[in-house]
């Protein structure tokens, strides 16, 4: 273990020495992209730029010690490949993750949070998404930056075309006021399947490419993984299918009749305007609770809040809530995803509560800004 860490550390230092001229501006851009300038266009552009330079940096970093090669120095050195990967992940955490946390913390402080609150919000936001894993894998199975970009762009376009086509076909847009499947209350099925497929496929690819260095097999696995990802929207996005699947998965579980959203002490003044909205006419089965609309009219940042999830029976033990996403959606709305913890029988899998193993629940609250 000591040697493993020493080797990882050596590779990390080597990468820092080698790549810091590209990494430093990237880190700065990533940090700045978290800061609000009250100029949505500038903010959006900064976020896109930060994403792009981040992708460039990750690809460059991985391909500095390419596994699709017979020439790179590391291949004949005493380097265990997991140590190499740990070093690369550490580099990404140092030069992309940390600036992300710092930028988000700075913004949190500007919004009036305490340092602890700001950090508590910023750290979960900086947890890398499966998308980063996909970028890493594409960098691993390609020989240069252009190949990697081509594969990434082609994969994204293909995936988006299939996903959007499926959504239009299932008329989600027609009966929902936002372009997001979570309002059906079943998005967790699609998202879990997506996350599982991405993670498992990526781990398999990394193992084949770095272990026995079977590039052809790793690339074939990528193709299979992409095919599976293309099938997932077709199989799981149409509400009829996802509802059926959710009913099957939820069979035998108790159903809490009511779901309320409470504000944590110390959060912004807000009141619950409507505890639930009946979506039954739109196809939501009885027993599934839809969105709670929260509004408030005090403070300079009315959309920042924290919540705990409660139900009548059994009680849900709320942990200090964490906002993990805060994204604008049409109609001057914002969507917040809040983590809480619930008891074993909290079977209410409403439109915004996702029950998972380990009694973790995911609550999605839609709020409308009053300005």
């Amino acid at each position, binding site marked *: 273990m000591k*040697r493993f860490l*020493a*080797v990882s*550390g*050596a*590779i990390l*230092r*080597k990468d820092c*020495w*080698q*790549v810091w*001229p590209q990494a430093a501006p990237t880190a700065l851009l990533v940090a700045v992209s978290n800061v609000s300038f009250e100029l949505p266009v500038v903010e959006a552009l900064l976020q896109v730029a930060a994403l792009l330079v981040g992708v460039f940096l990750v690809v460059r970093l991985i391909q*500095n010690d390419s596994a699709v*090669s*017979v*020439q*790179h*120095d590391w*291949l*004949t*050195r*005493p*380097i*265990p490949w997991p140590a190499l990967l740990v070093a690369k992940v550490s580099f990404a955490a140092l030069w992309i993750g940390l600036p992300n946390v710092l930028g988000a913390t700075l913004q949190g402080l500007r919004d009036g949070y305490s340092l602890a609150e700001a950090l508590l919000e910023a750290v979960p936001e900086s947890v890398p998404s499966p998308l980063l894993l996909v970028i890493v894998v594409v960098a691993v199975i390609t020989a240069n930056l252009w190949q990697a970009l081509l594969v990434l762009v082609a994969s994204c376009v293909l995936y988006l075309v299939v996903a959007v086509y499926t959504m239009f076909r299932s008329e989600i847009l027609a009966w929902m006021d936002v372009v997001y499947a979570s309002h059906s209350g079943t998005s967790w099925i699609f998202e879990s399947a997506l996350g599982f497929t991405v993670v498992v496929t990526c781990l398999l690819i990394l193992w084949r490419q770095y272990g*026995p*260095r*079977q590039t052809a097999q790793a690339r074939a696995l990528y193709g299979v993984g992409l095919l599976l990802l293309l099938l997932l929207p077709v199989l799981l996005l149409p509400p009829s299918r996802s509802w059926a699947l959710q009913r099957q998965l939820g069979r035998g579980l108790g159903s809490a009749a009511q779901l309320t959203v409470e504000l944590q002490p110390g959060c912004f003044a807000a009141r619950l305007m409507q505890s639930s909205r009946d979506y039954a006419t739109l196809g939501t089965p009885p027993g599934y609770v839809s969105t709670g609309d929260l509004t408030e009219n005090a403070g300079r940042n009315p959309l920042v809040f924290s919540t705990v999830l409660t139900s009548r029976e059994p009680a849900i033990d709320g942990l200090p809530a964490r906002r993990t996403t805060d994204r604008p959606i049409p109609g001057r709305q914002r969507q917040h995803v809040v983590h809480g913890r619930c008891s074993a029988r909290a079977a209410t899998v409403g439109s915004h509560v996702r029950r998972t193993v380990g009694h973790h629940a995911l609550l999605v609250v839609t709020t409308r800004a009053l300005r």
Partner: protein
Amino acid sequence: MIIQTDNLSRRFSGHDAVKGVTLAVPEGATYALIGANGAGKTTLLRLLLNLLTPSQGSASVLGVSSQRLTQRDFLQIGYVGESQRLPSGLAVAHFFDYLRTLYPNWDRALERELCKQLDLPGARAIGKLSRGMRMKVMLVGALAFRPRLLLLDEPLSGLDPLVRDEVMAGLLAQATDTTIVMSSHELSEIEGCTTHVAFMSKGRLLLQESIESLSARFRAISIVLPPGAPPLRAADTWLMLQTQGTLTRFVDTRFGEEAELRATVRAQAGEMLHFEAQPMSLREISKTLMSTERVEANR
């Protein structure tokens, strides 16, 4: 044997880069892999290092199947490749700092000595070094942990004579307990240190033996026959038989006793006016073998 291959083959889209190579390198040897460009030397070395997977056959390195080499084995294997890609943005000193952590057996004093001997600029980025300098960096990176096995792929290629001498001096002085396998075109430079020779052509191994045995059995023969004497017919073991008037030249690849060869020639052409059997350098032997292969290929 520190390296042993059995019927090792590697095919690239219909082309045999290495075909049925059975090689045995004894521990402590300095083993020269000789052959024309495209003979399969680099592919063979890459197969030994598990950079490539064999299409057929097997190889064992340090007693381990080449496909199962682990980082523990690489602690004992040094490699210098003509086309090896070093971290170009790194300064030379930082590169050695990095390598030092990878090898518990890294000899810092030897690193300093080699850097001094080869006059390496520690502060300069590897990407900004000349080809010769980069080769020296690779050599220090492969020697300073005192490997048991050193594989060198064209380490002298493209270097000027002064640098070649420096590299060879650095190599010879420091690799006394190391088995070296070296592919090279610069045969005159490596001849002095080579103990064994393998000759490859079109992916196949044509011969492998000790340099003493090879030098002993190869002779450049010059014979002057009397005018009107019948021309010599090539024996199986003679290569590059050429006749110009009364002068006949060839290379005898199974030279044993001079008297025996004289008797063979006399039996064919009668008395000779002049007979000379000259020992051949590795370069001359190699040239002969390559030319013969080319002639055979063109037939």
